[in-house]
């Protein structure tokens, strides 16, 4: 049995978790071209080595981030998403678009 340490629930069997993809900063959907958006949606680094990725503890629906080595399959650390997402994200029209909100 392989264990993954959930920042909320502690060490659990990895079969309780769902892999959620590579972590990438999300581009501003108001500013990107369709080409850049396609790249964000479909393309991956798929790196061989240490990567940061999303995981979800399925039973509690808790999403968090993990640093994992994709060659040795060692999980280096797991951490809550607010380590990176610590500022409020606004989805309003950008000021440059000239439209009032």
């Amino acid at each position, binding site marked *: 049995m*392989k264990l993954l340490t959930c920042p909320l629930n502690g060490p659990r069997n990895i079969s309780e978790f769902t892999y959620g993809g590579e972590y990438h900063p999300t581009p501003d959907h108001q500013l990107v071209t369709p080409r850049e958006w396609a790249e964000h949606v479909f*393309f991956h680094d798929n790196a061989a080595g240490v990567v940061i990725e999303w995981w979800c503890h399925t039973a509690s629906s808790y999403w968090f981030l993990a640093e994992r080595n994709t060659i040795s*399959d060692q999980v280096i650390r797991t951490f809550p998403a607010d380590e990176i997402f610590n500022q409020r994200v606004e989805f309003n029209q950008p000021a440059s678009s000239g439209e009032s909100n």
Partner: protein
Amino acid sequence: MPFGLLKYGLSSEYPAEHHFTPATELKKHYDVVIIGAGGHGTGIAYHLAKYHGITNVAVLEKNYLGSGNTARNTAVIRSNYLTEEGVTFYRESVKLWQDLSNEFNYNVMMENRGQLTLAHSDAAIRSFRWRAEVNQHLGVRSELIDRQQIAELVPNLNMSEDSRFPIMAGLWHADGATARHDAVAWGYAKGACERGVELHQLTEVQDIEITQGRVTAVKTNRGRVECGCVVQAVAGASSVVAKMAGIKLPIHSYPLQAMVTQPYKPILTPHVSSPHVHVYVHQTSRGEFVIGGGSDPYPLYNTRATLDQRESLSAAALELFPFLAQARMLRQWAGTTDMTPDYSPIMGLSPVDNYYLDAGWGTWGFKATPICGKTMAELVATKKVPEIIKPFELERFYRFEQINEAGATAASH
């Protein structure tokens, strides 16, 4: 021929046939450098040499011939896909498979056993009907069959209505086949080397030099090689190699695990797969049961075998074939599958002018080997993308024109 065989049989030394001569020294320059000596890489080299007269070709392999996913797949050949582009492409490949042993005069032990995919739900029956219609329209033999026909075709299949997921119907694909996977790389390599292609084993490409949007050379652990163009055919390492050329791909690499039992007497003829219980089973001509389709739940560049997959593959195989409970497992292994978002390959041109992609081969690479060799060689020789592989170009992701074959996998990975 009969006398040759007799002489061989009476010989006390059993002289081994000399297949090909691996090259020794790397030249300074090649017209074409192919990265990866699996079925695809050697197939491209073979077609370049035989049909296009291009023989100043080096096939660079970091390990030994056919040591990657050519040796790690489960040797399933079929063309019962869902999209017009997919079915047409794999249909042409199956046609080439039929004559492959004659093509390069090397026995690949092609066996037309047929392939049966099982439906355990109404939704699966609907999708099978759809696939059968598309297949028949494009000249591929697929038909929906009922429980009775399934029982006649595979008498030892568990047809009980009391099992967890009773079998409701099947998609019978008479064109399904299997072949000896190693022999494909050996046959192509032999034919290519006889015509002047150089195969360099234990030669790892470590960097790719790009000048003004063109590849000029590759750096290997044995020195620098200048080249007219490069083809990458490295299933399982597509992203890593493409990155050296500055190309990002829509791929996640997952291990796919399979296992094989000891040999038994022949009792199972077709290849049987169930996307619902996540397993496929066939018996090799040597008698072993190959049990496959166990995709790991997260990406990894590692071909280790896990107990989790052994348990789930065994449970699924036993649901279909309870008699396997007494079978002894011989080995379990993994291959790295480069999964694309639409479960179709990435073939053809890349953002770099003279760098060609043969990538994203997920779990569908082996069956496509002959058509890849043919079409990629044509692309390299003529600089024109053959019509049949045009839909699979990398650019499709930027146009949101994926070719969705996720519903046509053998064991829904």
